[in-house]
């Protein structure tokens, strides 16, 4: 695809751009595309007569990981584990209470004066696709205009933006001649999700955050959209953060997997290691909870009892200990540190830490 010429002569100088070419790589392939450190986001719960803060939801409580260039990082966890809050922090739809975000070597949220990457530029390079394909499109705009909106905001002329919108529709498999002027309610769920993907890609981002992108779709349509995501990643050289509660889908699409529990990282590693040799008891239980499609191998006992605890009042020490089959005194006393298991595999569990004082950890060390 040839890059159109900038028509931005009538735009104020600060909005004139070279027709939005894809942003260039800066730090080379080995530098992580995105690095998060100690990210914290608490939501106050107000109440009572004076509207004072009664409690705090610790939605994301000290999360750190990196997203490597060209990979798909899957994030899994149950409701309330903070995966969607993490997605919104990554997109900067929410501001973190503390913690740092570095995008290809530049601190996110800087300005021309202090250095770093201004949010406006960051958001051009990082885009998001949401679960609810209908709620995330303007019902009063033809889909072509929805897709062209962001490129226009970023300085592309009207005709160029519409042309790009049509190119993107074609790229996601919706013939522009048939679809460009339709409204969201005239499309099926699968088609709307394609439009959302087209809109996310219209700014030529480098990182796309996919928050449960196929969870609301029927299985036959889910497979179509997953195939499309694989193709687009190749075609546009993208990096994905793929958030889902569906462990099979995450295994299918991810290179590395991050498991979250109650606002913290429980385990992270290459997809084969996580699925074949999970080191955290929570990961193991989550995997064992998948229904089996083979009726001769039905589950006989549930791996875990009870629901995940409320993130308002998480357990002391290890947050999984209240549901963990291996919990011991040490798990209540001390928060486990991330144990490096080699090969990029790490787990936040006392059992994985030799010398942590857990009876099973001693055996690992021996």
């Amino acid at each position, binding site marked *: 695809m040839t890059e159109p010429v900038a028509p931005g002569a009538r735009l104020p100088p600060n909005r004139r751009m070279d027709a939005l070419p894809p942003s260039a790589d800066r730090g080379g392939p080995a530098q992580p595309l995105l690095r998060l450190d100690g990210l914290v986001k608490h939501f106050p719960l107000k109440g009572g007569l004076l509207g004072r803060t009664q409690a705090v939801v610790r939605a994301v409580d000290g999360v750190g990981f990196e997203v490597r260039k060209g990979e798909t990082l899957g994030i899994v966890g*149950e*409701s309330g584990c903070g995966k969607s809050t993490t997605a919104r922090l990554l997109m900067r739809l929410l501001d973190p209470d503390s913690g740092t975000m570095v995008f290809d070597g530049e601190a996110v949220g800087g300005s021309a004066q202090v250095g770093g990457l201004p949010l406006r530029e960051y958001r051009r390079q990082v885009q998001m696709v949401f679960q609810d394909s209908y709620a995330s499109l303007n019902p009063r705009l033809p889909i072509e205009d929805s897709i062209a909106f962001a490129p226009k905001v970023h300085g592309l002329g009207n005709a160029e933006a519409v042309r790009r919108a049509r190119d993107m529709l074609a790229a996601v498999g919706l013939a522009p001649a048939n679809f460009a002027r339709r409204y969201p309610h005239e499309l*099926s769920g*699968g088609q709307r999700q394609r439009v959302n993907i087209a809109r996310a890609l219209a700014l030529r981002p480098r990182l796309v955050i996919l928050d449960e992108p196929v969870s609301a779709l*029927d*299985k*036959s*349509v*889910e*497979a*179509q959209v*997953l*195939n499309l995501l*694989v193709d687009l990643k190749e075609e546009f050289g993208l990096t994905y953060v793929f958030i889902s*509660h*569906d*462990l*099979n*889908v995450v*295994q*299918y699409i991810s290179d590395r997997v991050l498991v979250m529990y109650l606002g913290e990282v429980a385990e992270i590693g290459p*997809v084969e290691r996580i*699925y074949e040799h999970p080191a955290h008891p929570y990961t193991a*239980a*989550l995997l064992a*909870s*998948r*229904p*089996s*499609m*083979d*009726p*001769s191998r*039905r*589950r*006989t*006992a*549930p*791996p*875990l*009892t*009870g*629901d*995940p605890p409320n993130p308002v009042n998480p357990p002391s020490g290890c947050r999984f200990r209240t549901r963990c089959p291996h919990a011991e005194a040490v798990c209540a006393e001390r928060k486990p540190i991330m144990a490096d298991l080699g090969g990029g595999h790490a787990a936040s569990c006392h059992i994985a830490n030799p010398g942590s004082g857990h009876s099973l950890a001693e055996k690992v060390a021996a």
Partner: protein
Amino acid sequence: MSLVTLRDLRVTFRTRDRTVHAVNGVDLDLAAGETLCILGESGSGKSVTLRALMRLLPRFAEVQGRVEVAGQDVTRMSEGELTDFRGRDVAMIFQEPMTAMDPVFTIGQQIAETVRRHERVSRAAAEARALELLELVQIPSAKRRLAAYPHELSGGLRQRAMIAVALACRPKLLLADEPTTALDATVQIQVLLLLRDLQKRFNMGVIFVTHDLGVAGEIADRVAVMYAGRVVEEGPVSGLMSGPLHPYAQGLLGATVHPGMRGKRLTTIPGAPPALDREPTACAFAPRCDRAHDACLAEVPSLREPVPGRRARCVLVPDARAESPGLVPAGV
């Protein structure tokens, strides 16, 4: 005698603006103590079929066909008979317990009310039954939870409480409309195993509507796959999972992501299900089927039975009952 008999069930929704032929001739049987999963995607008519068994459809729905549950003709019941029938002979659990339960009454009150509506027992006896039921569905500290309102419970506990209300009068038939779809993975498997256990213990008939093949694999004895308002394949769960007969069922299995598919391209079913503003007069799946030919468009294929107990509505499937010419079976 079978617990449920459906013959040529047809449901049409007619409003001023549009008509939808949601169910177009469904025959199903369920034996006492059997679990049947109705598997299908959105718009396949699975939930409408389930609701027709309890006459829970809106007034503008036109329902035709025979619907019998526990020897009673559901289509001819009066309002009074229906109220007795619901909750006593048949009960239903839903995907979202928060909307299915009354938010201003406690869990205990809602169970006791159901018991007293159908049985002549004292308030104290009904409350004792409520406690027993909460223990039965494994709600921890059941005694305290009797006084809890639905919003005070977590998602998993709320779903257990709804099961307790449904089982209050020991129904012969339990209808379940995607009851585990909204639950977390570790909670879903708990509720599935609980339902399996309760079904065995009370020898209930269960019809379980789901779009999830894994759920069907965990809980079903038999599976009926629905497409565009018709059952296109029916048979024991093991046969369907290891070798589906109907091209749609094959496509669905191929499109479902399961372990070991990494790096492979997913099989997809091209296109989308038909709009049901008119009743399909041929195989409704033919426009999406890569093996469709003239015979598929001539008429609605009959149900064929290649092996006893397994049926499929596809002209490619041979019928062992009638001596039909040996067309190539679709992936048997």
